[in-house]
């Protein structure tokens, strides 16, 4: 066993020397494998990142959340969520009143407005809503407190802000009690919301301002009385989520007086559907990367095979010498197989590094949540070793089967 290991090690040293004699050739040969392995690393990081962000989102929003958007009936082309909107605060009330499976319904308006505090600017999403919204989304103030029912009813100019907005506007200063200008009016900051991180597609959920819906309607987004942009619902439990969706559709059809056979002028989306969409996007991306990985690994493998055939041809005489002085077929086979594995493993290591770089790039540039696991390294090296063995076998066997006399160039 020890002798066997010593021989393998000697072959590895030999192979590395052979490879290092032709650095440029080795580099070009391993390029395909490098790209393939990089794709493998990226795809696994993407998959584990997607899994993680979905889990995170479920725990953040709860699997029993539902959203209702308006949909302009019988219009084609671009849809504007505010045009032809027929969702209202009355709808929210009706949903809670008439459904057995909907616990809460929070209507909201949303916009994006510049916020200013002592010369510091920020462009947060502004949401005007009711207190139930915090319960549905499971948002809590990190410091300060929510507004009162009284403030909500009278439309006081108060708000809560996300941590990113707080950082942009106030830096290290405590924002609570300060007055920040949003649009043309000043609002008093009541509290700062807990950090929620990025959504799976990279929008920050912390660059946000939340205020009572009537306050927003009178100061930032003027609408017809009672009109809202969307509704955020929560089913009584995760199990009743599907039933809540069905009931919401019936109740809203009735409220909007849509006749039998008529098209809904709203859409009810469950959290599960959002997740499915997100999974679909990640799935397509994963498939694409797997495709790239497969193609470049095969091309890379053929490259390795090609260069190994050249190497065998170049070193025919060396093979003959080795055979004459006592190398068995297995010795020659192992020598060239190890060389091919060394070549492809070099590509694998370089590809792993490239993959790490790509993951780091995606994470910072696109804000995707991706994660490299320890098993990724094993996978990358395993893949490249397998390629080396699979595509190196044919040239190695060809070398091992050479006739020593012909290899030595004797008659």
């Amino acid at each position, binding site marked *: 066993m020890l002798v066997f290991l010593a*021989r393998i090690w000697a072959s590895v040293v030999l192979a590395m020397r052979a490879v290092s004699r032709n650095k440029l050739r080795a580099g070009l040969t391993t390029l395909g494998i490098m790209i393939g392995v990089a794709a493998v690393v990226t795809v696994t990081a993407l998959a584990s990142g997607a899994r993680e962000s979905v889990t995170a989102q479920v725990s953040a929003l709860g699997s029993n959340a539902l959203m209702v958007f308006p949909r302009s009936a019988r219009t084609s082309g671009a849809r504007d969520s505010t045009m032809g909107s027929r969702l209202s605060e009355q709808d929210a009330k009706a949903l809670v009143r008439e459904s057995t499976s909907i616990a809460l319904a929070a209507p909201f308006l949303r916009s994006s407005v510049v916020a200013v505090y002592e010369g510091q600017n920020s462009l947060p999403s502004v949401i005007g809503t009711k207190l139930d919204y915090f319960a549905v989304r499971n948002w809590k103030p990190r410091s300060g407190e929510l507004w009162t029912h009284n403030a909500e009813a009278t439309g006081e100019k108060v708000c809560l802000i996300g941590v990113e907005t707080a950082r942009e506007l106030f830096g290290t200063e405590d924002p609570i009690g300060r007055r920040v200008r949003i649009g043309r009016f000043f609002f008093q900051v009541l509290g700062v919301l807990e950090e929620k991180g990025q959504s799976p597609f990279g929008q920050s959920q912390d660059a946000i301002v939340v205020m009572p819906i009537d306050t927003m309607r009178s100061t930032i987004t003027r609408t017809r009385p009672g009109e809202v942009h969307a509704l955020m619902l929560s089913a009584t439990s995760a199990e009743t989520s599907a039933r809540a969706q069905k009931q919401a559709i019936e109740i809203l059809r009735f409220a909007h007086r849509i006749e039998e056979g008529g098209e809904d002028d709203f859409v009810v989306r469950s959290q599960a559907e959002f997740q499915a969409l997100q999974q679909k996007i990640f799935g397509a991306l994963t498939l694409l990367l797997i495709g790239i990985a497969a193609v470049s690994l095969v091309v890379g493998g053929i490259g390795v095979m090609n260069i190994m055939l050249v190497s065998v041809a170049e070193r025919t005489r060396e093979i003959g010498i080795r055979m004459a*002085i006592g190398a*068995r077929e297995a010795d020659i086979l192992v020598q060239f197989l190890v060389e091919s594995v060394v070549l492809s493993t070099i590509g694998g290591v370089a590809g792993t590094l490239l993959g790490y770089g790509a993951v780091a790039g995606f994470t910072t540039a696109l804000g995707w949540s991706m994660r490299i696991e320890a098993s990724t390294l094993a996978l990358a090296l395993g893949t490249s070793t397998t390629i080396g063995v699979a595509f190196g076998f044919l040239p190695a066997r060809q070398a091992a089967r050479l006739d020593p*006399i012909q290899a030595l160039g004797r*008659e």
Partner: protein
Amino acid sequence: MAEPLIELREVSKDYVSEAAIVRALRRVDLVVERGDFVAIIGQSGSGKSTMMNIIGCLDRPSTGRYVLDGIDVTERSNDARAIVRNRLIGFIFQGFNLLARTTALENVELPLVYRGVGGGERRRRALAALEQVGLADRIHHTPNQLSGGQQQRVAIARALVTNPPLLLADEPTGNLDTRTSLEVLELLQRLNRSGITIALVTHEHDIAACAKRLVRMRDGAIQIDVRQEPTDAAAALAALPSREAEEKRA
């Protein structure tokens, strides 16, 4: 009479191609005893290289039997013959056949690598073999840093390192000048005196004259097989004008 090391019994070798059958060896009988020094001569196409290939276990006879050191190797597998080559035969080639870009020491260690000898032992024995051929001070030189004679001496050290009973030399002086040829022959004669059996293929008569026995091949058969009084290569070397004298004359 000493016991035989090489026994060829009615050995024939035919090369079959589409065009014709070439009968390279025709029922050759040859017995070489331990400690002998045989020179095999003949023109190209006489079958001497074919016979060397068979004696060296690089090729199999078409018919007949070959016994080496008491082992019938006629029908052995490729791997078995590789082991026989490694254990019983040291090869010396015309073109030296050293591995390029590999130091003298590593070249000499190579047969021991295939025998599975450990690193320390390997190095010790390779150094001893290089010392035996007078190259102890060149062990880290690669072939292209060595002269032809030095390269051939590295090749001889490589052949000796496994302590084989048989050295096979195929035109060992073919690429060397007279003086270096005589130096190599002097080394071979010294090794032969220490008990190693040598079979040498050549087409030069003054090289063949250094052997104890002369075998002339012709048309795939042994034409002449005689014992002779060998020329002493050391004496011939001493009789040459000194290197300084040669340079002065030039």
